[in-house]
């Protein structure tokens, strides 16, 4: 039997040992940590496109030779979550340096609030050099003539069409006018015995959250000569879709869904449906080419430019950080724009690099589907989302309105109802612009 005194002695000695072990561990960990910190540098890359993760890792691998101690942590998540992460991360402060991928339209708020630093002189000179970038991209990465970001890639839309399905429907070339799009969709739709479509003729974005619905609507609206927002003098804007172009666009959606029934809201849609042969054609960005190569390499398809022009939505890289960490991050950003890495980006990921003067022919020859994105017709036009603070709210609210319109069969074939809907949606857009002091007279 152990006496009380011995028990207390033993407890005290156990406590002392435990304390010594804890202190030792803490000191050891601290020493080890500082030794590691002295030799290594970590930067984090925040991306809103999961398919970009291999590219950023590839760039990091390439930097190993010149920056052996640089550790690059790539965190690529879905775009909407990425936007939330930036909103919270930049305002609450992040340790270390972070390379942030953002579109020029979304970054505006952060620049206006001095939450992102301007680019260092060498990066700025590189971005301003017309041999590297068209002024469209330089301006998108700048504010008031000061460069803040490095242009990297852009979203640009083309038509993807299944050549086997076109041949079966007796169609020899892609549609060249918007009227042809609907006619083609009707011919390409496959139906069951009851007449329900089983393969959609033209996959349209009809549902979902975020602003994707509004961006797709704008793309077709653009083919009719319209735009969601129209610039006026003094940096002011106004809604520009409660008009004939808007009516034609919405009518085309409703005509396909409810009158010709070439597509339904519940049918599989987008790239996945195209890869599985569940739709004959759809409009999307170039990343689909690499997606098809990976997931449906035997698919027979081609791409074609849109009738008038396309969205051109540049994405840039920005750096949040200070001192040596920031320097390492900008070195990394510069490396993303090396010709070798940009060719890799086009080949393996499929997003279109913005830098000019780089020979992409090896990729475009091997994958002819890129041709419509690079060799577009003379006079082909582009539009982009305006760099104004409330752009996301405008697009998200318009998307919510459009989703409701697409699921309302009463609008189909009813021009007066379509006009009323468009006026109501445009009024909402103008109210947001007015609230932010951006509404043109």
């Amino acid at each position, binding site marked *: 039997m152990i006496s009380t005194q011995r028990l207390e002695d033993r407890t005290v000695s156990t406590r002392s040992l435990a304390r010594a072990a804890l202190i030792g561990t803490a000191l050891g960990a601290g020493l080890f940590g500082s030794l590691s910190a002295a030799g290594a540098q970590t930067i984090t890359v925040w991306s809103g496109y999961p398919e970009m993760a291999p590219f950023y890792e590839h760039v990091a691998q390439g930097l190993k030779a010149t920056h052996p101690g640089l550790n690059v942590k790539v965190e690529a998540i879905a775009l909407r979550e990425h936007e939330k992460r930036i909103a919270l991360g930049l305002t609450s402060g992040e340790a270390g340096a972070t390379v942030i991928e953002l579109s020029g339209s979304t970054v505006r708020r952060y620049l206006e609030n001095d939450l992102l630093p301007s680019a260092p002189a060498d990066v700025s000179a590189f971005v301003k050099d017309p041999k590297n970038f068209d002024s469209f991209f330089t301006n998108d990465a700048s504010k008031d003539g000061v460069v803040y970001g490095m242009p990297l890639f852009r979203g640009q839309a083309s038509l993807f069409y299944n050549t086997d399905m076109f041949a079966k429907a007796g169609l020899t070339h892609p549609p060249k006018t918007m009227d042809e799009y609907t006619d083609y969709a009707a011919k390409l739709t496959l139906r069951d015995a009851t007449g329900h479509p089983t393969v959609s003729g033209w996959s349209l974005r009809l549902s979902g959250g975020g602003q994707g619905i509004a961006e797709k609507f704008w793309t077709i609206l653009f083919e009719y000569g319209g735009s969601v927002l129209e610039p006026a003098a003094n940096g002011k804007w106004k809604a520009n879709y409660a008009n004939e172009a808007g009516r034609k666009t919405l009518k085309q959606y409703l005509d396909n869904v409810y009158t010709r029934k070439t597509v339904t809201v519940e049918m599989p849609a987008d790239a996945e449906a195209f890869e599985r042969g569940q739709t004959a054609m759809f409009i999307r960005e170039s990343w689909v080419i690499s997606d098809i190569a990976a997931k449906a390499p035997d698919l027979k398809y081609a791409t074609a430019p849109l009738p008038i022009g396309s969205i051109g939505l540049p994405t840039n890289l920005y750096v949040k950080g200070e001192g040596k960490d920031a320097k390492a991050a900008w070195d990394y950003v510069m490396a993303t724009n090396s010709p070798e890495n940009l060719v890799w980006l086009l080949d393996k990921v499929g997003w279109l690099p913005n830098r000019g003067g780089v020979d992409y022919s090896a990729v475009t020859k091997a994958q002819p589907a890129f041709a419509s994105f690079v060799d577009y017709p003379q006079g082909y036009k582009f539009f982009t989302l305006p760099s104004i603070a409330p752009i996301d709210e405008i697009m998200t609210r318009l998307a919510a309105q459009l989703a409701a319109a697409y*699921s309302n069969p009463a609008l189909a074939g009813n021009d007066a109802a379509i006009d009323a809907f468009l006026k109501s949606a445009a009024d909402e857009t103008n109210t947001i612009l007015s609230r932010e002091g951006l509404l043109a007279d």
Partner: protein
Amino acid sequence: MLQRKRWIFAMLAILPTLAIFAWVRLYPIADTLRLSLQKWDMLSKNKPFVGLANFRELMGDHLFQDALVNTTIIAFGVLIITIPTALVLAALIYHRTRSRFAGFYETAVFIPYVVSLVPAAMAWKWIFDAKLGPLNVLLSMFGIAPQAWLFNPVLSVVCIIVLCSWQALGYAVLIYIVGFKSLPVSLFEAAKLDGASGPQSFWYVSVPMLKPITLYVSVVTLISGFNVYAQAFVLASDAQGAPGRQVRVLVLDMLENSFRNYRVGYAASEAVVLLAIVLVLTLIQFSLLREKGRS
């Protein structure tokens, strides 16, 4: 003197807990109330006071109204399904307590409550799929045409109610079983002597005796119903633009206003409305329970 010392000791002992509670519970609520009266874009240092302008704008905001209507329908829909079903299931499980399968019954009902929400919602998304989902296959066996569960404006709300009820059921059943176990056996024996059948005992003895439990479960279910978010988000999301219809609920609308539209003050005013709703429901619970206590 001793009394006073004890009182001071008690206060000092409770102070750290009170401080933590005030910091993590009361301060965020007070700050949300303050933010709801300001215009703030999350990035700017300026937060101008706008009075009740955010609340006035809310009244005319069709997205907020949609969210409020959808959330209320979902919360009460879940309540209407969960409470009677949980009560009946708990009664059945309780009266099979001696069965060797009793543990299995309880676990089977409780598992959905502990399963991670996202994979569960993904599984339900597949069940509701218009083209490949087993639900439409089942319905077609009875000659019912396939339904676009996740796209129809009414059916998509029904889907969320079903998913939320499926999850809430486990917790409600568990609480009811505890309630059943606390009921005096003598009452049931007396009812049996008076010739009451099993269903009669359930209806005339168990249900009234379990009223406090029902009130508690109702309010907890209703409050969690008003906080629905992830279910609506997952059922409508997809990797490549082939999602379902986005059922707008209050929390989702708040997140959108905060992080997409950069309107934190406006989102805070929505949070205040949600807080008021939850507060009223809690007050109803307290008043009903107090009445029960007095009687």
